[in-house]
Every structure is written in structure tokens, then in C-alpha cells.
């Protein structure tokens, strides 16, 4: 009976999260639509003013383009048209290459996915290890040193870190290739570069929550049972402290995608980042919108996964209102 209650609470929780995810995606699409198409005033002029000399485009051609992109209709109708296509996965065609936005992004995705995936792994593993050692050690100076590393990592400009790694490890020592897409060896430097800021963030948040958790009364209870410091870390503080860190990991996904723009430029790699940089340079509005909505999609999906992981780590997330403990047991 109780399992039933928890099951239905879980279902409600999942349904609510899914609905929220769809809502956020829709809103992200809407915001990007109005920012990109209407903030500049005239989208056609913005799209073609940058790429073509305005004298070569006659008013008739502009009117033709306007009609082709549907900008001669009322704003609301345009929005509904575009949204309807977007729901079916059609974000229009790139202005500069003429290829469909979806296909362009899909083609660039694997490269960036490998890069961002490795960077995520590196940042969680290294950042996590740093935080746990800072919390575990009893040497004050060591803790101070370890705790100061994250704020250093977050202060370094990503593009600069990449360039310095190239200068030191490629040009001077020749350990890794400086540019290009070749194999796993070529992936190392970009992934490390990309992992620095999020790794620092993970380390900072986890260390802070671990140290805060050490001051919690339940740790004292564990100590009074005779538990060792290692046991306290593994059984008690790590699990409690991992919740805020998990939230941060949700934010990192989007950050990685965005920073890939910089890293792929620095290392001259092909991928989503380069596509984005080129799209912004050529003011390719449909492509930029595709990237923005894709960024939001990554964020939403990652957070959906994390929200569904929460209840496994913290039973309080799904507090079943019918749970008898709180009411029946008063004054036991």
C-alpha cells in the first residue's frame, strides 16, 4: 500500500518534470525567435545586409525574400508557422550554405559530443577528487592549497588556457597535436581546456558542501558511534553533499556546449562550436536559432536526468503526503 503511494508520487513527479521540460523548450524557442528575428528590426536586412552589399539587392529581391521567409505576414502568424515547423524538427535552411539547419547541426554533433563528453568526465572526476581530498585531509595548509585551486581555475580565460597548452605541450614538447581532429590524441588538449572551468566549479561546490556537511550534527552522531573519518566521508557526507553538486553538473552541460565555440576555434576543430562561430559571423539567423534551441534542449535533457536521479540520492525529494510517520507517531 505504501509502495503504491510512493509509486504514484513518483509518477506525478516525473510527469511534472516532463511538462516543465517541454515548457522551457517552448519558451526558449519563443525568446530566441523574437530576439533573433525582431530585435534587429528587419530580419531580412540583418541577414543579407551583412553578407551582401545592399546595392546588389534590389527592392524587388528584398520583397521576394520577405515573401519566401514569410515576413510579409503578421508577426503572430509567422511565429505560429515557424513554431509548427520547429516542432517537426524543421528549423529552416541556413542562409549562407542553403543546407537545412537540422542536418548541419546533426553533422557537426558527433565531434562536439565526443569533446564535451570527455570534458564532462574529466571535470567531474578531477574536480570531485580535488574536493574529497580537500575535505578528507587534516593538514590545514594542504586544505588551503587545494581549496584555492578552483578559484584559480575559474579565473583563467578558456581561449588562453588552450593557447598556452598548445604552446607548451605541442610546440615545445610535441606531446600532442596542436590542431585538427585526428583521433583520441588530438582530443586530449581540447578536452582538458574545456574541462578547466566546469572542473573548478564542481570542485568548489562539492568541497563547500562536504565541509559544511562535516559540521552537521549527524556527523557527530556517526563519530559518537566510533566511525572513522573515511567511513564518515563515504557513508555520510559524500552522499549528502553530492546533491548540490549534481545541480551544478546540470548547469555544466550547457556551459560545455557554449565553451566549445571558443575551444573549437582555438584548436581549429570541426563541430557545433565552429558552426556557431561561423553562423554568428555571417549573421545566419536560422542557424543561430537552431544552435540556441539545441543548447536549451541539452540543458533541459541533462536536468531532466538529474531531477530523476535526485530521489534516488535523497528520499526527502518525494515526500509522500500520506506518509503515516509524521502524524501517527507523535509522542510514541
Amino acid at each position, binding site marked *: 500500500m505504501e509502495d503504491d503511494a510512493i509509486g504514484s508520487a513518483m509518477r506525478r513527479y516525473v510527469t511534472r518534470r516532463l511538462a516543465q521540460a517541454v515548457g522551457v523548450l517552448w519558451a526558449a524557442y519563443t525568446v530566441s525567435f523574437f530576439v533573433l528575428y525582431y530585435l534587429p528590426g528587419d530580419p531580412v536586412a540583418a541577414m543579407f545586409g551583412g553578407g551582401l552589399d545592399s546595392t546588389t539587392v534590389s527592392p524587388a529581391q528584398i520583397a521576394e525574400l520577405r515573401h519566401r521567409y514569410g515576413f510579409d505576414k503578421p508577426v503572430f502568424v509567422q511565429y505560429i508557422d515557424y513554431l509548427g515547423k520547429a516542432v517537426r524538427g524543421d528549423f529552416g535552411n541556413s542562409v549562407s550554405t542553403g543546407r537545412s539547419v537540422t542536418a548541419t547541426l546533426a553533422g557537426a554533433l558527433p565531434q562536439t559530443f565526443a569533446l564535451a563528453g570527455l570534458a564532462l568526465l574529466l571535470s567531474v572526476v578531477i574536480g570531485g577528487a580535488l574536493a574529497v581530498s580537500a575535505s578528507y585531509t587534516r593538514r590545514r595548509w594542504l586544505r588551503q592549497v587545494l581549496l584555492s585551486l578552483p578559484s584559480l581555475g575559474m579565473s583563467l580565460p578558456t581561449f588562453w588556457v588552450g593557447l598556452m597548452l598548445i604552446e607548451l605541450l605541442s610546440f615545445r614538447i610535441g606531446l600532442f597535436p596542436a590542431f585538427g581532429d585526428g583521433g583520441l590524441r588530438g582530443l586530449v588538449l581540447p578536452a582538458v581546456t574545456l574541462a578547466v572551468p566546469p572542473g573548478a566549479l564542481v570542485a568548489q561546490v562539492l568541497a563547500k558542501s562536504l565541509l559544511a556537511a562535516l559540521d552537521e550534527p549527524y556527523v557527530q552522531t556517526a563519530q559518537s558511534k566510533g566511525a572513522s573519518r573515511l567511513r564518515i566521508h563515504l557513508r555520510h557526507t559524500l552522499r549528502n553533499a553530492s546533491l548540490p553538486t549534481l545541480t551544478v553538473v546540470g548547469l555544466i552541460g550547457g556551459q560545455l556546449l557554449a565553451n566549445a565555440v571558443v575551444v573549437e576555434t582555438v584548436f581549429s576543430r570541426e563541430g557545433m562550436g565552429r558552426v556557431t562561430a561561423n553562423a554568428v559571423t555571417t549573421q545566419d539567423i536560422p542557424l543561430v*536559432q537552431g544552435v540556441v534551441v539545441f543548447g536549451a534542449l541539452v540543458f533541459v535533457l541533462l536536468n531532466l536526468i538529474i531531477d530523476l536521479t535526485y530521489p534516488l540520492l535523497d528520499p526527502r525529494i518525494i515526500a509522500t503526503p500520506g506518509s503515516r510517520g509524521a502524524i501517527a507517531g507523535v509522542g510514541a
Partner: protein
Amino acid sequence: MINELTGQAAATVDPVVDPVADPVVDPVTVDIQPGLGARVYRAIRFFAHRPGLLLSIVLVVLVIVAAFWPGWLSGRDPLRGDPSDSFRAPSAAHWFGTDALGRDEYSRVVHGAQLSLKATLIAVAVAFVVGALLGLVAGCAGRWVEGLLMRFVDVLLSIPGLLLSLAMVTALGYGTVKVAIAVGIASVAAFARVMRAEVLRVRHATYVEASRSCGARWYFVLRRHVLPNSIGPVLVLATLDFGAAILSVSSLSFLGYGAPPPAPEWGTLVATGRNYLANAWWLTALPGLTIAATVLATNRIARALDGEWARQR
């Protein structure tokens, strides 16, 4: 009659009793209003224990000087150089070396502070004003207004900051100010969230209800209790955002969306230096190091302010 007398007796006896019964009072209240000398001494001791903070403040002051009076720090012209003097490594004559046209790199970094700082200030101001206003309105209004505003903020949060900035740049076009606004808009969400959280915390604080139950009107409570007590963490966030804004602005100018080439801007300097990475490392390393040091310094100051604020509460 008797009651009256004994009552008065109690009133005169009480203050004598209280300090005895409340030993907490005395040690805390003794050194509350120190003299000027004591205050200077305390400041010296404070910074002596925190050399990093002192260094950070010095560095930030230098950057501000460089932005407003670059001539004080460097006598050379950042735009003109001697082509025969190109690609000199750092030396006493050229602290940061020279670039492909023989221009003094140090002077270019000093003069670049102006554009970078301007962009950063605009970005932080946009984020602070728009974000705090959104948060304040959401926190005070409650109900559907709060729901609507905070959902909007959620959407801003769901688009990765740099991508949002890039979208704004696509729409607005290139240039330092436009890049700055784009960066500012991207961090509006964080300010709105913190401001709202603080307003909610303070709004439900007992002393606010106490003021309301005294008969104070809402605008009086807002001005006297809610704003002063909630603005602190937002100001700390602003100092923290300063470092983040420097990084974002320089990233965008590194990608080539900032000031057009001849103007010395920090991100642009690194982007230019990148072309000579193999033969002139200083053109990349030193401007980049300047950015990193400035960000580190502002973050250190933000952390100190945060600590002070936390202690005040």
C-alpha cells in the same frame, strides 16, 4: 499603593541585576566604538593577515588607473611602433615585448584596459539593474506576476550564457558596447534569482512582520527593512559577476565580435597574438595573464565582501 511602590523598586533594581545575569553582554559591547587609531591598527592587522586580498586591491586599482589615465602607467603610443623593432622578447625596455609592427605590447595592454573595463562595467550594470529589478518585483508582487517573471528567468537560465550572448550579438551586431550588453543580458537571470530569494527571505523575516504589525505601510517596510537587508548578497554577486563579465567580454572579442582590430582590447590582443604563437609566445601569454590576474583579483575581493556580509548577518 503597595504594588506601585514595589513595582518602582523593581525597576531601579533591575538594571543592576541584568549584567550579572547576562554575562554575554559585557565582553561583546566593550569595544564597539573604537577610536580612529584603533581602527587604523585593526585595518593594518586585517590586511597583514590577508596579503592576497591586499595584492588584489592593488591590482584592481592599477587596472582602474590604466583605464582612466593610461599615460600614468605607460608613456608609449599603443598604436604606433617601429617596424625594425618587431618581435622583441620581453625586456627592460619593453616589459611585455613588441608585436609584429614593433608596437610596445605593455602599452597596448595598458590602453586596452579602457575598452575592456568599459565593456565590463556596462555588462555588470545591465545585469544588476535589470536582474535586481526583475527579482524585486517578483519577490514583492508574488502570485502570478512572480510566477511569470521567474519562468522567464528559468528560460534565460536554460540557454547557456555564451550562446545567449552570441544570439544577442547576431541580432545587435558587432562592437564593444553591443558585446557588453549581450554579456549583461546573459547574466540577468542570476541576479534576478538572488534578489528574489533575498527579498523573500527578508519579507518573511520576523522583524518585517513586526514592522507591519506596528502599522507600517508597505512602501515604508520596503524602503526601510526589505531593500537594505536584501541588497547585500546582490552587491556581492555584482563583484563576482565582474570577473565573469571580463572573461565573457574577452571571449567574445577573442572570437572577433568586439572592437575592430587596431583598437587594443584584451581579448583582441590575445587573438592577434595567436597568429604568432610559435615565434612570439609573449603576445599571447602576457595579455592573457593580465586578464586572468584581473579576474582572480576581483574574485578575491568579492569573496572577502561575501565573508564580511555573512559575518554581519
